C-alpha cells in the first residue's frame, strides 16, 4: 500500500519564495529532502565581460545592477578596488560620507531581507513595517544622488557631489525614530510562537562547514565566528568607528535573524558617529580626466550586507579598460551551502533556508 519511492521535484525557477529565478532540484523521501541541487544562471547577463569592454568609470552602473538591494555597498567595493589599482587616496570627508551611506544601505538591505524572509515563513505584518522605514532610506538616497535603488553613488577618487543641504535633518529624523521601529519588529517576531517554530533549529550550518564553504557575512557570524571585514581589514572610515560585531553560537535561522537585528543597531551607531565626527574639506581627489592603468592586479574585499564582496581587477599598461574584471559575489558563494543546510530537513524548511541566506539572484548570476 505504501510505496517507498523517492520523488524528484523542481522548486522554481518561477517560485515566489526563491527570491528571483533560482531553481532547486529536490529529491524527496516523503517530506524529507534527501538530495538538493541549486541550479543558477537564469539571470546571467555577462557583467564581467561587459565591464572588460568599458572604461574603468563605466563599470559602476553594472555593479548597481548585481545586488540591487545593496547597490551602495557594491559601489563602495568597486570604487575602492579601483582606487587601490591606481593608488588614489580619498579625502577624509568623502570616506565618512561613504561610510554613512554604506551603513544606510546595510539597513535597507537588512530591512528588505527581514520583510521578505518573514513573508516567506508566514508573518505578513513585518513586511509592511519594514518597508515603511526602507522608504525613508530610499528617500535619502534620492536626496543624495537622485536615484533610489541603482544609486551609482560614488566616483573613483571620492564623490561627485557633497551632501545636499538639509541631509543632516533627514538623518537625525531617521535616527530618532529607528530604535523604536526595531523594537516594533522584535515585538512582532522575537516571542512569536510560529516564527520560533519555523526558525529555531532550522537550516543549521556549523562554523567548520561555513568556513570550509567560504560563507561570509551574518551567516558565518551566527555560527560564532566574529569575522567582519570592517573590523578585520578596515576600509573607508571604519577604522575610526566604534562598533561591535554581533555573533551567536546557535548557527540556525533564528540566530541569523538575531545577528542581523543586532547589526542594524550597530549600523545606526556608526551613522551617528559619522554625523558627529564629519570632517570638513573636499570630497574628490585630484585625478586626470582619463585613467590609464599600469600593469597591476588587485583584489579588494568589503563587507556588503550579504557577506564579502570582492573585486578582482587586472590593469593593462596604457589601457583605459580593465583587462579583467571579476566579482566575488557573496550570494554566489553562500548559495553553495544550501544543500548542506536543506538536506535531511523538511521541504517546508527549504524556504527558510533560502531566505536566511539572503540571496539576490542578480549578483549570483551576474
Amino acid at each position, binding site marked *: 500500500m505504501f510505496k517507498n519511492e523517492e520523488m524528484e521535484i523542481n522548486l522554481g525557477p518561477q517560485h515566489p519564495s526563491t527570491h528571483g529565478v533560482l531553481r532547486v532540484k529536490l529529491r524527496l523521501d516523503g517530506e524529507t529532502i534527501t538530495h538538493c541541487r541549486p541550479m543558477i544562471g537564469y539571470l546571467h547577463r555577462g557583467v*564581467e565581460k561587459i565591464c572588460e569592454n568599458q572604461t574603468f568609470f563605466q563599470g559602476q552602473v553594472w555593479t548597481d545592477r548585481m545586488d540591487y538591494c545593496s547597490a551602495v555597498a557594491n559601489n563602495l567595493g568597486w570604487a575602492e578596488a579601483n582606487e587601490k589599482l591606481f593608488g588614489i587616496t580619498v579625502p577624509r570627508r568623502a570616506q565618512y560620507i561613504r561610510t554613512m551611506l554604506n551603513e544606510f544601505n546595510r539597513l535597507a538591505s537588512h530591512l528588505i531581507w527581514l520583510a521578505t524572509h518573514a513573508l516567506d515563513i508566514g508573518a505578513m505584518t513585518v513586511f509592511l513595517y519594514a518597508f515603511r522605514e526602507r522608504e525613508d532610506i530610499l528617500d535619502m538616497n534620492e536626496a543624495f544622488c537622485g536615484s533610489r535603488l541603482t544609486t551609482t553613488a560614488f566616483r573613483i577618487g571620492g564623490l561627485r557631489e557633497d551632501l545636499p543641504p538639509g541631509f543632516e535633518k533627514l538623518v537625525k529624523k531617521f535616527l530618532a525614530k529607528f530604535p523604536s521601529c526595531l523594537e516594533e519588529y522584535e515585538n512582532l517576531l522575537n516571542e512569536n510562537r510560529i516564527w520560533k517554530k519555523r526558525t529555531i533549529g532550522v537550516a543549521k550550518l556549523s562554523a567548520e562547514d561555513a568556513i570550509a564553504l567560504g560563507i*561570509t557575512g551574518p551567516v558565518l557570524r551566527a555560527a560564532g565566528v566574529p569575522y567582519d571585514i570592517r573590523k578585520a581589514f578596515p576600509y573607508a572610515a571604519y577604522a575610526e568607528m566604534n562598533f561591535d560585531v554581533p555573533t551567536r553560537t546557535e548557527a540556525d535561522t533564528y540566530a541569523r535573524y538575531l545577528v542581523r537585528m543586532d547589526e542594524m543597531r550597530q549600523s545606526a551607531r556608526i551613522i551617528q558617529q559619522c554625523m558627529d565626527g564629519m570632517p570638513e574639506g573636499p570630497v574628490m581627489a585630484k585625478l586626470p580626466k582619463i585613467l590609464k592603468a599600469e*600593469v*597591476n592586479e588587485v583584489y579588494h574585499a568589503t563587507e556588503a550586507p550579504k557577506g564579502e564582496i570582492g573585486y*578582482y581587477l587586472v590593469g593593462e599598461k596604457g589601457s583605459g579598460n580593465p*583587462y579583467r574584471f571579476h566579482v566575488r559575489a557573496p550570494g554566489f*558563494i553562500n548559495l*553553495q551551502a544550501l544543500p548542506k543546510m536543506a538536506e535531511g530537513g523538511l521541504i517546508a524548511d527549504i524556504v527558510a533556508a533560502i531566505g536566511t541566506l539572503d540571496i539576490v539572484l542578480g549578483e549570483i548570476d551576474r
Partner: protein
Amino acid sequence: MSDETLPQPSETPEAPAGPYVYDYAASPQRQVVMPKTVPLPSLRTYEAEVKAAAAADEAKWQKMLADFETAKAKAEAEGKEAPKPPVRPVPRKDDNDLKTPWPQEAKDDDLHRLQERLGGKVEEIFEQAGELTCQVSKEAILEALQLCRQDIALNYEMLADQTATHYPAATGFAFSVVYHLTSISRRKRLRLRILVPEGFSPESACAVYPSANWMEREIYDMLGIRFANHPDMTRILCPEDWEGHPLRKDYPVVGWGQRDIAFREDRGGMLERIALQKAGQLGINLKQPKAE
C-alpha cells in the same frame, strides 16, 4: 495587427551546409580586438622594464650630447655662434593624486615561509598594493594549497575567491588562475597564482577547500579550464549546450542569434522574426549537448 498584415520577408535565408561559422567581417559589431600585451604583474618583468627604460633614457641623453658636439664643431668650422648646451630632460610631474603601486620585494614572512617549504616549486614572490602574491608551478598548486591550509604558521582557513584570466598574447601559457586565501584568525590575505597553458587541467582545490566547487565550475564555464578530480565539472551559468567560453578574449561581446538586430530600425519586429527563423534553421542553441 494580425500576422497576415505584416510584410513577409522578401527572401528566405538559406541554411549553410557545414558547421555554423560566424562571418565576423559581415557584422562589424562582433569584431574582436585581441590584446597585444600580456598584463601579468610580476616583479621580474617590472624590474626588467625599469632597467630597459633607464637604458633607453641614457642612450637618448648620450645621443643628445653627441648631436650637440657635432653641431658645436660645425658651428666653429663655419665661424657661427655656438649652440646652447643641452639640458637633460626631467620626467614630467603630473599634478594629481595618483600613486601607482609598483611591484616590490617580498618582505612578508608568509611568502618566505612558502618559498622555504616549497623550494623550487615557487616561481616568484612579490608584494604589490599591500597584497602578497606567490606564483607556484602549475603541478604544485594542490601541495601549496594544502600547506597554506594545514601549516600552523600560515593557517589560511578560507578560500575567498578563485578566478582566471585569459592571456592570448602570451607564449608558454594561456591563462593565469588566482586563488585568494583569507586567514580569519591571523587577519591576512594571500594570493596564489599559477600559469596554465591551453588544454592543461590543474588539480582541483575542492579536496582542500570545498568552497572551490562552484568557483571552478564558473572558471570552466567562462574560460574553459577543466579542473582534474573535480566532483562535478559542468557549466554553471550558461546552459549545458552553450558553445564557447564567454570570458575568453576571442569571444565577441555581442552574442549569437536574435541579438544581431538593429532594434531602432526594427519597428515592426520583422527583423527579429527573420533572425529567429534563421536561428531555428541553423539550429543555434537547439543542439544536443556534445560529449567532451
